[in-house]
């Protein structure tokens, strides 16, 4: 956009005051939550990539001799069953790593789609107001009354369990909160002096939405999206546990817990490993979200 480029040239700092990027960097390093969360998320992403080649056996490769084999830790080096094997003799670590790839990429896609829908509808409802607002908010009300898990399960049960259906159904249920928050702040901003000022000064509705309103809703959206990733990970695990998530034999954390439940008493590692991975992943995204809140909160501006 032309205006944006010119605006950037105009804002070109003439004095050596610390730039926004520098301040942001300083704040990021200052927030323990953010640093820990970021490390966690980085490790998860690396683990996803690592899962492609690490283990001696593939995640689906069965070895009946190794059925429910106890963890060998590192006694056999990286080549052994580090965290044991499951009921079919498949390497637990390999399955957890591969599972992370599916879980994380599903969660990211869902949050991306949900956020896009939510931001768009929230902006439109908050800015246009009137009948449009009322209509969108009634849809939001309806969605709010239906628990995500129940709606998602019902529809997946009807449409059939597949990764694609999972993403569609979860996206269509996860935009609601974002839309509400964005609408709320848009509504507040619509009455603010600086939006009035822009209007008096001849800004069009598009310019107001894109240049005055949107930048100010980005921080809360980022924070919410990060925390939504954790929520979606948990929902997906619950659905997979009930057999309505990622279809077997593709490894998924929820599915692994479900399968391992029967062997829990004798081989607890079969359920401990995927659950631990799930918790650490969700924890990392939640920490990142809390850290972002610390960093992006305008009240901690100085």
């Amino acid at each position: 956009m032309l205006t944006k480029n010119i605006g950037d040239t105009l804002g070109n700092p003439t004095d050596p005051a610390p730039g926004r990027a520098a301040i942001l960097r300083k704040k990021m390093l200052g927030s323990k939550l953010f640093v820990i969360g970021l490390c966690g998320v980085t490790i998860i992403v690396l683990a996803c990539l690592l899962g492609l080649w690490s283990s001696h056996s593939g995640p689906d490769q069965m070895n009946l001799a190794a059925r429910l084999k106890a963890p060998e830790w590192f006694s056999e080096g990286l080549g052994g069953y580090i965290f044991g094997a499951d009921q079919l003799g498949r390497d637990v670590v390999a399955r957890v790593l591969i599972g992370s790839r599916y879980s994380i990429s599903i969660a990211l896609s869902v949050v991306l789609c949900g956020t896009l829908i939510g931001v768009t509808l929230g902006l439109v409802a908050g800015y246009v107001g009137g009948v449009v607002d009322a209509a969108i908010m009634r849809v939001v009300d309806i969605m709010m009354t239906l628990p995500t898990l129940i709606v998602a399960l019902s529809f997946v049960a009807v449409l059939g369990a597949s990764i694609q259906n999972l993403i569609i159904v979860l996206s269509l249920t996860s935009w609601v909160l974002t839309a509400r928050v964005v609408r709320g702040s848009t509504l507040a901003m619509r009455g603010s002096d600086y939006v009035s000022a822009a209007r008096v000064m001849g800004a069009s509705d598009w310019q107001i939405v894109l240049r005055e309103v949107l930048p100010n809703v980005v921080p809360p959206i980022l924070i919410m999206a990060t925390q939504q990733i954790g929520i979606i990970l948990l929902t997906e695990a619950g659905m997979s546990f009930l057999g309505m998530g990622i279809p077997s034999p593709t490894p998924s954390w929820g599915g692994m817990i479900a399968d391992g439940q029967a062997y829990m008493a004798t081989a607890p590692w079969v359920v401990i490993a995927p659950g631990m991975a799930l918790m650490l992943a969700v924890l990392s995204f939640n920490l990142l979200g809390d850290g972002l809140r610390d960093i992006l909160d305008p009240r901690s501006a100085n």
Partner: protein
Amino acid sequence: MGDNPAAVGRASGPGSPAQEPEGAGAARSDLRALTGQGMRRVLQTRVVLFGISVIAFALVRLAPGNPAALLMPVDATAEQLAAMEARMGLDQPPVVQYFRYVGNLVRGDFGYSYFYQQDVATLIGRALPNTALLGFAAMLISLGIAIPLGMLAAIRRGTVWDSMAMFAALIGQSMSSVWLAVLLVLVFAVKLGWLPTSGSGGIEYIILPALCLASQDYALSTRMLRSGMIGALGQDYIMAARARGIPKRRVHWQYAFKNAALPLLTVVGSQIGGVLAGSLIVERIFNWPGIGLLMANAIAARDFQLIQSILLISGLIYTVLALVVDALYTVLDKRIVAS
């Protein structure tokens, strides 16, 4: 001192807005506003109920293939299928079908579950009290953890206590209820043998599932209470209360808490409304005979009539709870009426 039009209606602006009725008149206008708001709520609720029923109705129609077949066991005969189609009125336009569906609902006919071989209404009626009991127990546990934790974190803000409380909340937020349930069973039932692994009966059966259900809720309640308390403690009325020599404990637990508890009320209301979702997994794992188990079995058996009705019921429960929370709000916070 601007005369912002929006401020006029709530008489909180500086000075006395000339248009605002004062004195005895204010009470009357409150009443009028209350009924006005109540009416608006009811109107909105009807729209919401309509929406839920449409979604529930659409659920079965969305499926590929014959809706009648979906509602029947896989091995149903052709005659059974035809009978079902006629019963569902599938030969009629969708609008007519929808009104038939709603008509049946209003008469209390939620359909028939082929999996359980029983009326859906009967099934739900039998399961609902069990889920309500579980939900109530979970709510007690959740608030029993959240209130002390949230208050501690807010009052001792920035200290080690605060960090510990917030970490506890973070763990709760990140814990999968599936996994927690499995771990609880592993430790308390399998290894220690203190509590039964599943089923229903005496109080020992409810402890683990309620704990598991509460773990999903206490984190959010703790955080809401903490931020609400921090907000309230920063208000002028807190300093004013201290300036009158009112003891600290009373300032915290009465002056600040009532203000901070209002947002918590909304959270708790929506958590009770969402109890069906949480109970799905927990009841399944602990074999607790509530709505959640019904739903889990319905999904496993692809019993769509039952799924459809549970979806509808969960929406209804939530809507009713939202109305209750609204009503409580107006009782607790008189400003709502004025705004």
